[in-house]
């Protein structure tokens, strides 16, 4: 099954990214193809320069680990531009895309999960 998870809110205010990451890990373990679409403020979770406290989780790094396991991480390019997230700041393997790519993911996914608080 192809499963896409869309997130919308900031990674260190809400915990939707944590939910998305946990879901993605479970889906991967069960053999599904997983995509994550970062929309609006959630694009900030692709910023590799975040510096969380040592006891806290490093969300961009967790996303990068997922990428290395085959998860596609899409970043809404317009949302990123709006928030000053540039190519050199984003985690390796993630890609800037946009609403047309979101449409394609909605179209091809068997399940499309949009996380909103």
């Amino acid at each position, binding site marked *: 099954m192809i499963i896409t998870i*869309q997130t*919308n809110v900031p990674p260190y205010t809400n915990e939707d990214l944590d939910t998305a990451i946990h879901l993605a890990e479970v889906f991967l373990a069960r053999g599904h193809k997983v995509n994550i679409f970062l*929309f*609006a403020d959630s694009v900030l979770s692709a910023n590799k320069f975040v510096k969380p406290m040592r006891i806290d989780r490093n969300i961009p790094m967790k996303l990068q680990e997922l990428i290395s396991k085959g998860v596609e991480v899409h970043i809404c390019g317009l949302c990123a531009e709006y928030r000053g997230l540039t190519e050199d700041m984003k985690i390796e393997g993630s890609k800037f895309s*946009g*609403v*047309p790519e*979101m*449409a*394609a993911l*909605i*179209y091809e996914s068997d399940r*499309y999960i*949009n996380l*909103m608080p």
Partner: protein
Amino acid sequence: MSPIGILTLCHREEDMKKVLFAVYTSPAGSIWINETFRCIFGMYGQDIEPVALLLNEAVLAVHKNCKPEQCGVLPLSITFKYIEKYQTKVYAVKEDLEKYNIKEDEIDPRWNLQLILKSDLAEFVHSFDNVIFF
């Protein structure tokens, strides 16, 4: 149209996915109504047939006097030209409009709004392939 064109059209209509974008958040205080419509407008030409549904506090957006720009934030009116261009179907829950005392003659006609009863929502929602909440 050529027979092949007709066949392609039939095939494409069958392949279209109907997606409901349901937004429940207030038009002032969050960006989600604008972002919902940005998503909707980006769906056209992508084998997706998008429809908007305003419910709960989001119905406040349709009032003629709802102008978030007066608080210095993004206006809702930027969506109107695309609603008209794409003839986007926009629904609002009738009971939610009543809850906020919005009369039919107070609705901005540029929303191209159709009202839906709460009792019809379940069947309406089930008529879509995907429902995405904002």
